[in-house]
């Protein structure tokens, strides 16, 4: 009698046979930011960001570059992408999006992301309880541009840190990374686990498809109580930058006048 050939099991066997060599557990930390086009206003005596009517998105560097590259690596080699966010329940929508794009499972640490240190200490405390081969995040958030969380997580876990990474290739336990520096790039090689902050070039944005969105609904999203530390800096006040006095239009035929204004009025040349 024919025995039905189990393709699924055969595939699993192939994947499993390579586990020790390639399979990676990657932690991708995502954060939530207002959409760039949002109007900015403040409340509570200009000490708090006014989120009324603001559209929030997954920080693009986390989404387009860190998350997608992590998914690509596990697609090639097998493995697991855990999505981690430090924030309130209202962030679940961006976490589900990350799962729809291809994250395997997710964890939300249920506390306000009050400063970089709070976020980093929670991420590091969680990562210590697991064993991740790589920890990814975006090079910075588009609202605060601090680029501190990755560096902090790396120090808390005593791991190497490669920031502003625009390419990553992995061979065995060795990673080759290109990082953006002033006016060019630096290529480095890292042995074993490390923390990477991803910049443009690392991957291409993926739009979640209907299947991904449906699957995301059933992927595990664990909510855990805060395990990190309190903030170390406090926001005193938000202020608006001094308003521009309006554009001064110059006759396109008279560039001598523009040069005179740049020299005498603006004093920049």
């Amino acid at each position, binding site marked *: 009698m024919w025995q039905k050939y189990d393709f699924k099991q055969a595939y699993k066997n192939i994947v499993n046979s390579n586990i020790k060599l390639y399979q990676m557990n990657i932690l991708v930390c995502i954060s939530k930011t207002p959409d*760039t*086009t949002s109007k*900015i206003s403040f409340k509570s005596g200009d000490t708090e960001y006014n989120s009324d009517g603001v559209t929030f998105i997954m920080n693009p*560097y986390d989404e387009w570059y860190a998350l997608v590259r992590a998914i690509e690596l596990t697609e090639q080699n097998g493995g697991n992408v855990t999505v981690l966010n430090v924030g309130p329940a209202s962030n679940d929508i961006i976490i589900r999006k990350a799962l729809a794009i291809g994250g395997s499972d997710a964890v939300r640490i249920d506390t306000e992301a009050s400063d*970089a*240190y709070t976020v*980093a200490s929670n991420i590091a405390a969680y990562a210590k309880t697991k064993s991740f081969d790589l920890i990814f995040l975006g090079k*910075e958030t*588009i*609202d*605060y541009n*601090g680029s*501190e*969380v990755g*560096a*902090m997580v790396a*120090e808390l876990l*005593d791991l*190497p*840190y*490669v*920031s*502003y990474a*625009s390419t990553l290739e992995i061979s065995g336990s060795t990673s080759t990374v290109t*990082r*953006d*520096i*002033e*006016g*060019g*790039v630096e*290529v*480095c*090689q*890292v*042995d074993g686990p490390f923390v990477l902050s991803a910049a*443009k*070039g690392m991957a291409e944005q993926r739009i979640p498809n209907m299947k991904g969105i449906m699957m995301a609904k059933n992927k595990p999203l664990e909510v855990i109580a805060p395990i990190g530390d309190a903030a*170390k*800096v*406090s*926001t*005193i006040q*938000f*202020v*608006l*930058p001094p308003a*521009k006095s309006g*554009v*001064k*239009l*110059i006759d*396109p035929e008279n*560039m001598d006048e*523009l*040069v005179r*204004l*740049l020299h005498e009025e*603006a004093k*920049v040349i």
Partner: protein
Amino acid sequence: MSVLVYIESPKGQFKKTGLEVASYASKVAQATGTEAIALVIGNAQNAGQLGLYGISKVLHVNSNDTIEFDAQSFTKVICDIALAQGATTVILSNTANGKALTGRLAIRMNAGSVSGANSLPDLSNGFVVSKSVYSGKAIVKYNITTANKVISVMGNSLQPEATGSDVTAEPIQVSFPTTKLKVLERKTSEGIVPLPEAELVVSAGRGMKGPENWGIIEDLATSLGATTACSRPVADTHWRPHHEHVGQTGVAIRPNLYIAAGISGAIQHLAGVNNSKVIVVINKDPEAPFFKAADYGVVGDLFDVVPRLTAAIKKFKAS
């Protein structure tokens, strides 16, 4: 108590961003009644010149070696020296390396930190540091309440002031901890000021119609001694190299002068450039949103206007 400032010396030279943070540190030290100590790591020519910017002591670590950057080992070395010197405040440049160090060092020193400060701290009520946030649409003021503080300073936030005099750098030998990271190579463009440090920037967008037309932009940049930049679509279509892309997903800059030709001024572009001190926009479309963010505007065809501006600048420079 003292203020320690790490001054980067790429290719053995200090850059303007380094001299800026030397000035920044000496002003913080002055305001807090203490001294500013500069830390230089590896090859650097004439480290003692930092005294000019108000630094009272220069520590030159492994001055004869070229030491490749590794955030992990540099953090350990800087932290050890900060402790040995009794430094409670550490100042860094907000460069690629400075940003990689800020958060790490804050953890190691158990310090509160601000990355990307845009002005000197206000000490009238605590230790308040401000920085630009929300794509330049707001400024946030933070109070750092911890005893130890780490601050990285945005380029072009203050002018370096050479009011002091040279000091003699003190050499120190440190054994760098071995780590799992190794720098293989570095590729940087020679001879031009990198965008994050440039004071004058000439930028162009899709209005240029094709990469073959960039000669007029390069001529304008050369006449000014400016660095060239471009908008995202231009970098995405490989008309110009990726490292020239300024904007939200590219490089954020804050030069004294930003000239934009043929760029409409989408919010994502403005996010990377609206901290420029003076913005000049050249566009044939009077409705281009960029004019709203500009100080000076020229409504006209860039293929006429840009060469005319170059000629006017050459005339001005020759006069």
